[in-house]
């Protein structure tokens, strides 16, 4: 079963990441690097990506002529995807355990709590009978 682990944050969360000291960033990248290696070594790793910061995020819709209409204004409460992992595991519980590990990435001293990780199953695709 494939699961996606999503690291989410609001614009203000990202603003605070941008102020992290160099040591924290380095510790965080080292943690992610070791974590990814461990997932690969244990054979559960499928993919992982980090996304650019949300200040360049755009919402795109098709206009009446089909041309893209872009918008870059978001509500303050909007959660942006910061990055994700896809893991191939035996059970949802195994995915939750891996998410709890990802939740432990180093943060600056004094920052509250561990990072929440959203866990969702990845589907194989639409049912065969719907593909014509």
């Amino acid at each position, binding site marked *: 079963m494939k699961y996606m682990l999503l690291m989410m944050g609001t614009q203000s969360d990202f603003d605070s990441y941008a102020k992290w000291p160099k040591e924290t960033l380095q510790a965080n990248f080292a943690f992610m690097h070791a974590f990814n290696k461990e997932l690969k070594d244990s054979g559960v790793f499928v993919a992982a990506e980090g996304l650019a910061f949300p200040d360049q995020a755009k919402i795109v*819709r098709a206009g009446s002529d089909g041309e893209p209409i872009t918008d870059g204004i978001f509500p303050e409460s909007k959660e942006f995807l910061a990055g994700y992992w896809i893991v191939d595991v035996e059970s949802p519980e195994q995915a939750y355990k891996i998410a709890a590990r990802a939740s432990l990435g180093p943060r600056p001293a004094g920052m509250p709590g561990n990072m929440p990780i959203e866990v969702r199953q990845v*589907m194989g695709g639409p049912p065969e009978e719907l*593909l014509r």
Partner: protein
Amino acid sequence: MKYILMMTGTKAGTETYKAWSQKDVETHFAFLHALNQELTESGELVVTQPLAGPDEAKIVRAGKDGALVTDGVFPEAKEFLLGYWIVDVESSQRAYEIAARLSAGPGPGGVPTNMPIEVRQIMNARAAEAKGAK
């Protein structure tokens, strides 16, 4: 440059899909299938994945002792990722064009959904590490 195109929706929004007729659902999937094939042939599609509905979504945190804590309660306004496409394109404009194509996918009665698609650049890990090491 790689971009991720994200289709998102609230739980209430995803409930409305359940009311689509079988024919509308088939038309929509046929549209997505054809678009995926076109993007594969043009060499732009890196990967696309649909996600299971938000009903079984969980938020996981490590507790104080490192043990996992799961939570399945979300604010009503929360937007869930429904599926995504990663495309490798020459410009952001091309990524927006592909997003607009997705947005124009047929809804009930074949009317375009005009669904919003969030477009974000995928970060190059090496560039990020270099930035962090400055």
